[in-house]
């Protein structure tokens, strides 16, 4: 789960990290009032789950409250990478002497949380890594002990030469580690971590990726989810216990298991088609899931055919078959369904489908080829 910058700043502030003031506006009038209260030059920043906000025109400096209102009017409602901006952050513009990067990720290789810090802040860390890997200092943290004071100080000396700034930074790094663990993050970044001309060290922008598996025990973090910041179909899918990702093609796919779902998308492409989605109905045997899956897929007008690829293990094929039959009686499905079912209770499933007037195959190649043929026939008919 992603959270917004303003929410990330709040979490950091709660853990003691120095964060400059800032407030959120949902309307130009609110932006005006906030900017007036701060006085002086402010920055207006789109709050949206996408990188490259600056390049998209979602970050603007405003010298006056009137200018802040104008910028807010333009940015609110703007679309950045398919996401509509619903909120802006208004913060006083800071004078900056230096910009650094600090981040923590859970590293697959070392199986530990790893700090990454660099004197080159304010740009994408991936860019720094590609251009000058030596500019990034890494440190593995033993999760049983956390970030030890000497480790924090050692990292801080990689970023700053001034002793007061080193000490301030070391404190921030330990606070950041606490915030990382206590919010159940898989990634946190402060970028940039700035120094002011007066020598203060502050977090100017922050990013948290929360591990979805943590949400069951962190209701405060789960409450930060902004459902309006994700596509409707994906919210619907999540609430129905499905994993759904919208793609650009014409062949809807309903599959059990993430690996098989990806392999099905790939096979659609192999035979010359384009997948309309990734959809994993998961391992359980609830016919209702199939109904929800079909509801979501049929809401995409680009879909010309729906392809089921089910390998029954825990998932029982007869449950999926029942789901298909129920769904077709509840939803007006105007595109053809092609079905592959293999594994647990396969015979029973085939009988259920046959009685309802559907046929099914047991081969993944066959069903995908059929889907691709029907999709291109559908496209020809539409022309």
């Amino acid at each position: 789960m992603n959270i917004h910058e303003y929410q990330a700043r709040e979490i950091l502030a709660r853990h003691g990290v120095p964060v400059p003031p800032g407030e959120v506006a949902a309307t130009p009038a609110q932006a005006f009032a906030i900017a007036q209260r701060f006085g002086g030059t402010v920055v207006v920043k789109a709050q949206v789950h996408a990188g490259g906000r600056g390049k998209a025109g979602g970050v603007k400096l405003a010298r006056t409250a009137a200018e802040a209102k104008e910028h807010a009017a333009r940015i609110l409602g703007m679309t950045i990478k398919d996401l509509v901006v619903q909120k802006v952050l208004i913060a006083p513009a800071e004078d900056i002497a230096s910009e650094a990067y600090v981040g923590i990720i859970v590293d697959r290789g070392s199986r530990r949380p790893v700090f990454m810090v660099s004197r080159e802040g304010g740009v994408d860390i991936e860019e720094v890594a590609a251009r000058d890997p030596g500019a990034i200092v890494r440190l593995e943290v033993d999760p049983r002990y956390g970030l030890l004071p000497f480790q924090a100080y050692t990292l801080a000396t990689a970023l700053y030469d001034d002793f007061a700034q080193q000490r301030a930074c070391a404190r921030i790094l330990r606070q950041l580690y606490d915030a990382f663990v206590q919010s159940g993050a898989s990634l946190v970044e402060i970028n940039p971590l700035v120094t002011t001309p007066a020598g203060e060290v502050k977090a100017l922008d922050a990013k948290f990726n929360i591990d979805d598996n943590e949400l069951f025990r962190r209701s405060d973090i789960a409450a930060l989810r902004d459902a309006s910041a994700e596509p409707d179909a994906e919210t619907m899918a999540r609430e129905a216990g499905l994993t759904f990702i919208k793609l650009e093609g014409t062949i809807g796919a309903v599959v059990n298991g993430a690996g098989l779902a990806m392999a099905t998308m790939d096979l659609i492409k192999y035979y010359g088609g384009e997948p309309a989605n990734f959809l994993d109905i998961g391992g359980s045997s609830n016919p209702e899931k199939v109904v929800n899956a079909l509801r979501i897929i049929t809401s995409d007008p680009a879909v010309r055919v729906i392809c089921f690829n089910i390998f029954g293990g825990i998932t029982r094929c007869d449950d999926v078959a029942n789901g298909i039959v129920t769904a077709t009686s509840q939803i007006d499905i105007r595109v053809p369904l092609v079905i592959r079912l293999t594994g647990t209770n396969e015979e029973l499933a085939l009988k259920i489908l046959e009685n309802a007037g559907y046929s099914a195959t047991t081969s993944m190649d066959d069903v995908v080829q059929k889907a691709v043929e029907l999709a291109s026939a559908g496209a020809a008919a539409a022309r």
Partner: protein
Amino acid sequence: MAIFIDEGTTLVVQGITGRDGSFHARQMADYGTRVVAGVTPGKGGHSFATGNGGIPIFDTVERAARESGANTAVIYVPPAFAADAIMEAAASGIAFVVAITEGIPVLDMTRVDAFVRDRGVRLLGPNCPGLLSPGKSKVGILPGQIAMPGPVGVVSRSGTLTYEVVYQLTRAGIGQSTCVGIGGDPINGTSFIDCLEAFEADPATRAVVIIGEIGGTDEQNAATFVSERMSKPVIGFIAGQTAPPGRRMGHAGAIISGSAGTAAEKIEAFEKNGIGVARRPSDVVGLVRNAL
């Protein structure tokens, strides 16, 4: 022969009275796995009925291991308690722990990983289908009927995609020594390389199929291992060639971040290191047949 589990495997099922645990305890017992004990706190002293007789239930893994002599544990407990269950097994003298549970927080796994390594215990998973040595033993949730004994080792990060490949091999009359699902999470106990090393050492395995997916660099590391350390032929498949960057494809580990972890990179690493790459799951069969 086989890897990790065989006729000598004696199994304790943690969470045996739960929905998934009870279903799969019976499936495993029916398959012929020696299920010798179950654990559910508060249900100690009861017996769990299967087609092959009753299985004694204990409150703790320590007691279950001591009284039943189990050498392997399988975990079906919910995510909130699963990290603790893995560590309980590792602390109880169990040598091999298989964690089926999906949804364990990754930060919990960083601690679990350190805990089990300190004790020299092998963990498979979490968020994995387990493993199956056809005709000998099955631990986890893989459907037993899709496999048959034979010379091919299969290792995979996914569940149903593994079934797909195993099923196609079996239909073509090519059996398997052991099929292992290592799981789709970013941190898991047993890696591709651990499995490849075990298959290389297993006299019953004559070829290996490795099924990877997008995210991370485990497949690239495995490819280097194959070219440097393996004499047996290896066939590969990578899922997620059409996956868009930055979107998590169901598995917590399946995400392309920046330019790293793409299917194209992994396929290239496989090919460069002498691993024959199947373009479709069904192409695995022909490549394996040629390799044998």
